[in-house]
């Protein structure tokens, strides 16, 4: 059987499942639903395996299957005056990059589907949940298999919709439906960037098909730092910050934990959020042509990594810790892309999909066992009660902190190493930030481990009574993922450790041209292997010191932990409230636009003074009475000034939001008028 010819069917199976569920699911019994939906995904997985196997025997390792011409050629004028055709096909491209993505998406997706049949068995809307989940698989597979940016965007929007539907799955809960809307709106900001990037790309290259764009970009007609390419990459990167939850658009991801846990595992950890990284790796040749963008990308990635990790330290909700951990790990991947280590980014994407899905599913199993409790302060000592969950969770926790031989070790060290030798920006600084983040990661993950599984039990009476291990349908996927979290990294065994890094070779056809450009234009000093060994040892030491610190504070000497938290209560409060980013966004973008000035001002004032004073209080104590003056005038003054500036700058946006449709329509008329006048007076 020629599976390569059948790759268009890979997204089709889940689509069929989704259609069946959403049209007829209401009448189906649950057992039938839990056969059809995971079955469809499994079929996709089998076809993917067959196709990837056959792909590996093709010499050029690339296969394009065009179903039909979707947007046929309307001709238009490019920026350089040439005419070109807007031809977008409904076509699929299987190459090493998309093959890794489809294997991860269908493989991990299948395991999560199986798990969900157990997890969701007591919930209403069983068929609806699986219908959405299958629809998500369809969109995601379209996204990664597309052969042009337009079709990618179809999938990109599709996963956004499914994410919205699934976050708001418990739609009768207001916080869940709000979280869904927040995710959708934050993503919309990013999507606008992608659309604009696509238009700029059309104007520059005259095509949005990957093969054409890559061939043109690599042809040497575009020099390094070309303004148009910088614009394209920056615009696409805005989309990446939305979808892959980077600063400043990351705010939706922690709230997305309102959805059911399998959704968090599938969409908000393993697959959808990595779409941004995929987009960057797909366009890697454009990124290497624009060092400015690379610097921005690396900076944003590193900042996101450390920023989210610090928030993760102070959260008590087990899923929120993992959510911030996801944001932080995505920061790693983006950082990898920013320093030109696209292969390492994909590698980490893959291992992260394994161990983070496992962490989330494990957390789901814990929550299941605790009858819905998510607060870690009410857990503890669960290791004996739920042995399988504990054992698999342990593997994931060791993998994410980078214990040698576990998958996270290889991918994370690859990123750290590439950041260290990075030709982009100041590599040492990036390396330092990434290394500190690794320590923080070890700390908060093991804080979670110790608070949940070890120590004395803080479980309340009622929940303790019901405490039980999850059924096999949930634990078996956990075990499979545990094996993958352990062994999944071995395909990227680095050469310095005597491996041959299969992954790097496999990705060669995709990343080769970009890497060549990068090498030609960067003074690439030789780095001794000893440096690499040293850095590896260093990161292991940092990870384990984070672990031991967590052990000291949360098992050995809880009093010390509490007293430290007391001493730095300002910082503690700041972290617990996530740097007040949500409050600031709310005041600036949400409240600022709809509320009358005075009210918004006073609320914003109250919150920021609260945060600012708490944060600064411990500092003032150190600087004694002299700082009273400082506190009173400079801090409060700055706070008031900020509030005033926000109020003033949001004024124009506020007066536009009248809620009257006719005025909105009138703005269309004025836009038309301006547009025509431009041509009139040109």
């Amino acid at each position, binding site marked *: 059987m020629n599976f390569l010819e059948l790759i268009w069917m890979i997204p089709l199976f889940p689509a069929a499942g989704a259609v069946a569920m959403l049209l007829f699911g209401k009448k189906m019994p649950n057992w039938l639903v839990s056969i059809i939906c995971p079955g469809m995904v499994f079929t996709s997985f089998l076809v993917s395996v067959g196709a990837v196997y056959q792909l590996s025997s093709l010499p050029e390792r690339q296969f394009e299957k065009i179903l039909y011409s979707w947007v046929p050629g309307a001709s238009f004028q490019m920026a350089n005056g040439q005419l070109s055709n807007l031809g977008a096909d409904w076509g699929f491209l299987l190459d090493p990059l998309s093959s890794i993505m489809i294997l991860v998406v269908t493989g991990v997706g299948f395991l999560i589907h199986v798990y969900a049949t157990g997890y969701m068995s007591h919930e209403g809307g069983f068929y609806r949940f699986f219908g959405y989940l299958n629809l998500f698989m369809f969109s995601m597979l379209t996204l990664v298999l597309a052969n042009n940016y337009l079709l990618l965007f179809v999938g990109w929007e599709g996963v956004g919709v499914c994410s919205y539907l699934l976050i708001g799955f418990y739609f009768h809960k207001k916080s869940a439906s709000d979280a869904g809307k927040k995710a959708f709106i934050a993503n919309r900001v990013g999507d606008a960037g992608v659309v604009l990037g696509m238009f700029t790309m059309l104007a520059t290259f005259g095509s949005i098909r990957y093969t054409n764009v890559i061939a043109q970009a690599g042809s040497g007609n575009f020099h390094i730092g070309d303004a148009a390419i910088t614009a394209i990459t920056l615009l696409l990167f805005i989309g990446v910050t939305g979808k892959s939850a980077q600063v400043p658009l990351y705010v939706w991801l922690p709230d997305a934990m309102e959805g059911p846990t399998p959704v968090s595992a599938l969409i908000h950890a393993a697959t959808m959020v990595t779409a941004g990284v995929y987009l960057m790796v797909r366009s890697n040749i454009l990124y290497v042509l624009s060092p400015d963008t690379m610097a921005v990308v690396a900076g944003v990635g590193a900042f996101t990594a450390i920023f989210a990790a610090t928030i993760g330290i102070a959260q008590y909700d087990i899923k929120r810790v993992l959510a911030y951990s996801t944001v932080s790990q995505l920061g790693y991947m983006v950082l990898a892309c920013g320093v030109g280590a696209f292969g390492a980014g994909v590698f980490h994407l893959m291992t992260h999909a394994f161990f983070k899905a496992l962490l989330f599913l494990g957390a789901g199993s814990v929550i299941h066992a605790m009858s819905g409790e998510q607060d870690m302060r009410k857990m503890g000592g669960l290791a004996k009660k739920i042995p399988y969950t504990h054992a698999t969770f342990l593997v994931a926790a060791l993998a994410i902190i980078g214990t040698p031989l576990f998958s996270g070790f290889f991918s994370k060290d690859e990123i750290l190493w590439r950041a260290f030798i990075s030709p982009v920006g100041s590599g040492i600084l990036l390396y330092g930030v990434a290394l500190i983040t690794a320590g923080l990661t070890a700390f908060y993950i093991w804080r979670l481990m110790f608070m949940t599984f070890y120590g004395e039990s803080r479980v309340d009476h009622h929940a303790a009574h019901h405490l039980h291990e999850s059924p096999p349908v949930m634990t078996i996927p956990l075990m499979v993922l545990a094996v993958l979290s352990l062994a999944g990294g071995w395909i990227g065994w680095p050469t310095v450790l005597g491996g041959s890094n299969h992954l790097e070779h496999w990705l060669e056809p995709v990343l080769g041209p970009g890497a060549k450009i990068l090498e030609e234009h960067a003074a690439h000093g030789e780095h001794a292997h000893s440096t690499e060994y040293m850095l590896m040892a260093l990161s292991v030491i940092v990870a384990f010191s984070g672990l031991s610190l967590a052990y000291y504070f949360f098992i050995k000497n809880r009093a010390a932990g509490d007293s430290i938290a007391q001493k730095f209560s300002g910082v503690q409060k700041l972290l617990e409230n996530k740097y007040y980013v949500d409050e600031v966004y709310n005041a600036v973008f949400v409240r600022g636009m709809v509320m009358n000035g005075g009210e918004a001002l006073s609320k914003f004032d109250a919150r920021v003074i609260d945060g600012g004073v708490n944060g600064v209080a411990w500092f003032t104590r150190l600087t004694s009475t002299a700082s009273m003056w400082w506190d009173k005038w400079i801090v409060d003054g700055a706070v008031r000034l900020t509030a005033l500036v926000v109020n003033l700058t949001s004024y124009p946006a506020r007066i536009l939001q009248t809620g009257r449709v*006719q005025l909105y329509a*009138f703005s269309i*008329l004025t836009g038309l*008028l301006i547009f025509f006048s431009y041509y009139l007076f040109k």
Partner: protein
Amino acid sequence: MQSVLPSLFFYALATMILVSAVVTITRRNAVHSVIWLISTLLGIAGLFLHQHAEFLAAVQVIVYIGGITVLFLFVIMLVNLDEAAKKKQFAGQWKIVVICAGALLAELGFFIFKGAEGFYFAEPAGGSLQPNTQLIALALYRDYLLPFELASLLLLVAMIGAVVLAKKDLK
């Protein structure tokens, strides 16, 4: 004389259409508005006839004048408009809207007549599309079969949607 008559016909109809349209949007009473809308639509149907689009002219009379305007009248009867008739007729922004729209029309007119010289669309080709109904049938059922089916689906959805929206209480 033969060629003057058709253009006279056109300008008479155009005047009728524009005057009725202006009156349509300025009447205080919504029923009067609908009556004047019918006059506009009749003018447009005449224009279609004038261009040998007989089938379309018939559709215009049957669907628009016979169907849609009656729908409007029904709704006006259902909704209590006595209150509305006493209130202010125009929204506060009407002056600026009229100025902007006038400017837009002026610009459009400028482009159209400038384009009419440079562009070849000033000269209608001779002849007419006959037999009109048969040609349209071929276009609809052969060339545009899929859009036609989609349009029927759209009508079905709109019908169900309108029923659901206008129902007194759901469930």
